[in-house]
């Protein structure tokens, strides 16, 4: 099953998710649901000095949504928000590529294991669930910190 959606990397993240669990401190928490399959994720974001200090999460869902959220935390934690956002954009682009894009391993690291998912429109939403929640939470966190600052 070399063409399987379920690359070893995905299965590893699914079985042993990174950074899972809800932690403090955080400036924003969001809850996203994929209504077509019931997958849910709660994401907390802690940003300071323009850097993603922590992302913690909890959720239920299929292997793709769980593994992709785990990979996402690896990719964004510790990075400047701008850089993390551009990774999110790169992942989004990969997911919308319908299998036509050669993924950039330097940028996406373990995320490249999801390239095959882009051929399965029904699963793309799963792969994006955690990422979209993170983007949403980060935007809220930035807005909240700006408000405090002003």
């Amino acid at each position, binding site marked *: 099953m070399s*063409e399987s*959606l*379920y690359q070893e990397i995905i299965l590893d993240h699914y079985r042993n998710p990174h950074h899972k669990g809800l932690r403090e401190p955080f400036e924003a928490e969001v809850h996203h649901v994929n*209504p*077509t*399959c019931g997958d*849910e994720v709660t994401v907390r974001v802690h940003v300071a000095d323009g850097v993603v200090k922590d992302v913690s999460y909890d959720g239920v869902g299929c292997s793709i949504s769980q593994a992709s959220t785990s990979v996402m935390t690896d990719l964004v934690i510790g990075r400047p928000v701008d850089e993390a956002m551009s990774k999110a954009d790169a992942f989004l682009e990969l997911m919308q590529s319908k299998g036509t894009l050669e993924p950039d391993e330097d940028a996406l690291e373990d995320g490249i294991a999801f390239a095959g998912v882009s051929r399965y429109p029904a*699963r793309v939403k799963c792969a994006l669930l955690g990422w979209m929640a993170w983007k949403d939470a980060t935007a809220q966190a930035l807005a909240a910190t700006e408000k405090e600052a002003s």
Partner: protein
Amino acid sequence: MTTLLPDLTTTPYDVEAIRRDFAVLSREVNGRPLVYLDNASSTHKPRQVLDAERAFVEQHYSNVHRGVHTLSQEATAAYEAARATVAAFIGAQHDEVVFTKNVTESLNLVAYSLGNPGSPMTLGHGDEIVVTEMEHHSNLVPWQMLCERTGATLKWFGLTDDGRLDLADGVITERTKVVAFVHQSNLLGTVNPLPELVRMAKAVGALTVVDAAQSVPHMPIDVAALGVDLFAFTGHKMLGPTGVGVLWGRNELLSSLPPFMGGGSMIEVVEMAGSTYAPAPERFEAGTPAISQAIGLAAACDYLGAIGLDRIAAHEAALTATLLDGLRRISGVRVIGPDSMESRGSAVSFVVDGVHPHDVGQTLDEIGIAVRVGHHCAAPVCKRYGVPATTRASSYAYNTEAEIDTLLDGIEHVKRFWGVS
């Protein structure tokens, strides 16, 4: 269980002959022969249906109802003959069958018409519409929307733990104007007690509306004998094309309802200041209908009729019994819906402990087995049984015992792959 089935040995059911009519069934998926068990979602179409449509389009096509030229006469005759065939298939009269685009339109048609000016019933605060907790969204959301438009209240029958309607007292009351329910649940497989529901509705003078999307394809129906008021089904789940559905109702009732969509063909006299409408069925067929699709659906009725709905039902029952038996033997698998053959159809939903339905479905697909995963457009049922989604296998006339065995083996493979065995 076997006593429930007619004797298939004296009239052998030639599933291999049937399969040869469906090109896709000899396809491979991911290197394995396709095992198509997603029939509750949609069925494949035999070449007889495709040929009927093509022959019509290539030689007799034209718009209907509006012309005197030969093609227009031929097309009208073919379209009306299709209506007669579909009507006969459910034991109805020709002028009782309205063609729609799918059962969803049929049900929306009723929900809109009943709330439109000229409706034989006034709906407002204090009036009640009753559905069930096992409705497909297509027989739930239209009624929610009708209630929102009119101020009526939506009520529903809940479900028992074993996937049946809980026909509790007090749901249907003197204020109930409409009782809308699914004949056979697409998620649970449950066949509902139609006579009982009709009796309860009639006792308070409520109109009965039946979503028969999952019953008409799978059992012989004599709609005239059912005592229901309106009865809807859809072509693509019964070997017919997409783009065509049916609403049945007695002509007097249909012709007493105000129109749903306005436009060509549904009118009598049109003036800028106002219009009058044709009687049913034309009243509800605004615009150019799904002409070749109606002809395809009639060919599907002929095809099903040639096999025999009773024999199809028996064939499915045998497959379903094998499937339920097999699932019972796999640990960590739970059926959502009736676990016996009593009053149930061939749609079997289940969950595999520790594996998300998406992963069950995808892993089965990797070995060529097509099942559906998700909430099957019946989200409240998932909620009722505390699952985010289910995996559903649903067989039809062309499935085989060997395919059910492949599925059962596949579920064992799923458990191994995801390390839950």
